[in-house]
């Protein structure tokens, strides 16, 4: 080790709190991701509740206009970037290696880095409540984000933390792309990949292609704000519509980034609790790929009222409508899966079925938006939040909840309370419809979105009251979920390795999995290999190489490392340095942060994955 310029003793499998800081174990990182993101979800929920209280009746004065505008902006940004995306990432981390029969991910330290960067971005965004958070809406349309309109630091925090979150997402996605392509167990061909892994893989690809676009958009905005560039400066000929294009070129693929992992989860849960294989596996995979592909051709449907002209609107109308076709294929194949099955209504199954029911609603209102002339009556009304919450809450969150319960035995090693789970399902199911369904009504009744108050004489009072009431049912539901998870993670019944009689590889190993996951790397012979193994009895062979001589100690795993944490910390400092760039020395803090980050990355790249043998094992 002394051959390396920077030689700080390397952490050697530390335990306790410190262990979490240096861990590169994908399962632990998955848990870190999940817990953090869930807390972020709660903060976003609290923001939503505050908004709902303010809108419970006409002309209420619970929060001010300025605070309300921060609330919905932070709520949207939080839910999308700090809740749904990282919750999906939590599953990528924990589940993908287990499903493909790998002992770890391709780049364990990059993975750790991804988590710490995510945390940095999340903290930065959320702490911006102190001193005024961003208030330009989650898509931050120019020129509301310009210095002239918005001189405070709120927008700066929003920009910089989105950049950091982007780095986190990119790091994770590169990692999972390589992991899925390159770390599959023998025999695990692409067309034998479990559906969740497939959808996550597609998501990762979408992500690495979509994020650079918003990175550029944010860079341009940064330059405008900090150095008076002209990108979105109308006075010098800039176009505020360019921002919208760049944002939605990213933004629409982004919504599929949010939903595809949830679709993957549902595609795992339905077969297991119907005791049937997924109907039309290949078609479902193909549909996922087509959705990802078509997702790039529809972005301007968010801009139907901007005045792009009839021809452009017609083109985007057509492409947008067509995207319903591959999505429909998925829905119908899910129906085909439970059709003729033997359905067990466990909590995850209920959430998955709820997903189909609710996502369908959201999908159909999406197609209603696609009809651009009548969308002119819906755009920027509550009909949009109605659509968006049906696909995001009814879709992404329901799918994620399904996953949280489905894999609960695997990651915690315990069983949750089924009864409590079911009650929470019904509360959430009913709560979300009471909350979000009336948004269709008030939307069509002419209520614009993003208004902090409304007049008494508009006829919106009743349904807004109902919506607010529904939000409180949701609070109850989530409190039950929290309690169920929290209590049983500690004191639940120990879980067997395969409590659901499931189909995929992660259920073939103990709950929770040992650090090395698989004692012997499995050899995969078919789709749903674990199920086949259980059905076929003894046709499972010991790997030819005689892995049996291995025991847990011989399997060498990537070693913990400080550097991902250090690099992320450097990034955080640099980020604050950019926002407060005139602190003491101009840009001094940013320079310090960058230096720390740079040192971190340098040391990291010089540090071998595994110390004892100086070899490049991943070469």
């Amino acid at each position, binding site marked *: 080790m002394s*051959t390396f310029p920077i030689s700080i003793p390397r952490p050697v499998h530390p335990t306790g709190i410190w262990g979490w800081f240096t861990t590169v174990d994908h399962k632990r990182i998955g848990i870190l991701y999940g817990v953090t993101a869930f807390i972020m979800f709660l903060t976003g929920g609290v923001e939503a509740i505050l908004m709902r209280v303010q809108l419970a009746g006409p002309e209420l004065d619970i929060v001010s206009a300025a605070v309300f505008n921060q609330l919905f902006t932070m709520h949207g940004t939080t839910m999308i970037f700090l809740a749904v995306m990282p919750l999906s990432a939590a599953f990528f981390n924990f589940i993908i290696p287990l499903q493909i029969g*790998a*002992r*770890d991910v*391709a*780049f364990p330290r990059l993975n750790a880095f991804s988590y710490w960067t995510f945390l940095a971005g999340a903290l930065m965004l959320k702490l911006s409540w102190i001193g005024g958070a961003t208030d330009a809406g989650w898509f931050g349309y120019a020129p509301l984000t310009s210095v002239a309109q918005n001189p405070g630091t709120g927008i700066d925090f929003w920009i910089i933390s989105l950049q950091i979150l982007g780095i986190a997402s*990119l790091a994770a996605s*590169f*990692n999972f*792309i*390589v992991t899925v*392509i*390159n*770390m*599959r167990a*023998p*025999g*695990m*061909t*692409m067309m034998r990949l479990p559906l969740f892994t497939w959808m996550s893989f597609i998501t990762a690809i979408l992500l*690495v*292609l*979509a*994020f*650079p*676009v918003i*990175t*550029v*958009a944010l*860079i*341009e905005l940064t*330059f405008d704000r900090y*150095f*008076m*560039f*002209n*990108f979105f400066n109308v006075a*010098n*000929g*800039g*176009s505020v519509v*360019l921002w919208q294009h*760049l944002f939605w*070129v990213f933004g629409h693929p982004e919504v599929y980034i949010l939903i595809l992992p949830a679709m993957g989860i549902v595609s795992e849960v339905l077969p297991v609790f119907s005791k049937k294989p997924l109907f039309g596996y290949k078609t479902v995979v193909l549909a996922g790929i087509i959705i990802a592909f078509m997702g790039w051709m529809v972005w301007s449907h968010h801009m139907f009222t901007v005045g792009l002209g009839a021809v452009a609107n017609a083109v985007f109308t057509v492409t947008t409508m067509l995207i319903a076709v591959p999505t429909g294929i998925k829905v119908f194949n899910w129906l085909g899966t439970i059709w003729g099955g033997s359905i067990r209504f466990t909590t995850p199954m209920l959430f998955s079925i709820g997903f189909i029911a609710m996502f369908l609603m959201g999908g159909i209102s999406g197609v209603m938006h696609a009809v651009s002339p009548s969308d002119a009556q819906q755009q920027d009304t509550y009909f949009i939040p109605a659509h968006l919450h049906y696909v995001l809450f009814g879709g992404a969150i329901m799918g994620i909840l399904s996953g949280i319960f489905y894999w609960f035995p695997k990651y915690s090693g315990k069983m949750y309370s089924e009864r409590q789970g079911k009650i929470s399902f019904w509360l959430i199911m009913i709560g979300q419809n009471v909350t979000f369904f009336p948004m269709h009504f008030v939307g069509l009744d002419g209520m614009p979105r993003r208004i902090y108050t409304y007049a008494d004489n508009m006829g919106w009072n009743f349904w807004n009251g109902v919506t607010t009431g529904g939000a409180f049912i949701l609070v109850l539901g989530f409190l039950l979920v929290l309690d169920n998870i929290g209590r049983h993670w500690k004191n639940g019944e120990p879980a067997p390795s395969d409590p659901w009689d499931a189909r995929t590889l992660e259920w073939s190993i103990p709950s929770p999995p040992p650090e090395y996951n698989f004692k012997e*790397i499995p050899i995969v012979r078919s789709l749903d290999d674990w199920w086949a193994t259980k059905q076929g009895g003894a046709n499972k062979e010991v*790997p*030819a*190489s*005689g*892995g049996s001589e*291995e025991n847990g100690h011989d*399997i*060498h795993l990537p070693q913990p490392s400080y550097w991902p944490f250090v690099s992320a910390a450097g990034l955080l400092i640099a980020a604050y340095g950019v926002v407060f760039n005139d602190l003491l020395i101009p840009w001094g803090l940013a320079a310090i942060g960058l230096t720390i980050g740079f040192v971190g990355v*340098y040391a990291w790249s010089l540090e071998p994955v595994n110390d004892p043998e*100086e070899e*490049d*094992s*991943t*070469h």
Partner: protein
Amino acid sequence: MAQEHAAPIHGKDEGTTTGLSHRKMLMWAFLGSDCMFFGSLIATYLVYQGKSLEGPLPIDVFDIPVTSISTFVLLMSSMSMVLAYSALTKNNMKGFRIWLISTAIMGATFIGFQVYEFSSFANHHVEIDCVSPGELTKYEQHIFDDGCSSGEAHAESHEGLKPQTNLFGTTFYTLTGFHGAHVTLGIVWLLSLLLLSFKKGVITPEKNLDVDLAALYWHFVDVVWIVIFTVVYLFGVFPGF
């Protein structure tokens, strides 16, 4: 396809499914993603082309012969990079180092040109003879109209091209600046490799991946410049565009 290559298990999890290196795959995925990064910057540049409200415009500041030289230097650096890699795989460490250094030097030369270019654009100054102005660009005509009306003998421009000046400045400096930043990072990377190559056993004909990756990055930066040179410089000065 890919899956048919399923690597034999050596009793350990060392082998990869496709037999390809993780890191090289990561590099390619990154380059694919970086295409979108530069793509967005180029899109912004093109969308704003010709939309600047005032000069100077490309035709006023660009000096195609000078940029041609720096383009040539960057192209050559790509060649020298590939030769460095080639030398390494042939176990020609000396050749490797020489080519590596020359790549870095050419990269630095390119950056030098860019610095020169930026500063000359920023200080761009025209002086127009009011009596016999000759052929004028739109921008120069503007200066002529402004400055020569009151019977002066000469008219001068006051400001050069800064990012704040107009849309062209904004988009041009951002696009080429980010390219320059990529090159700079590449130079640091190459120099790091050079240092490492003096440590025993770190970079060897067998362990050439580190160099391979740096080379990929370097060539990518080169191809981005190929696009920029054509789209920004050549098209930019082309009158009909």
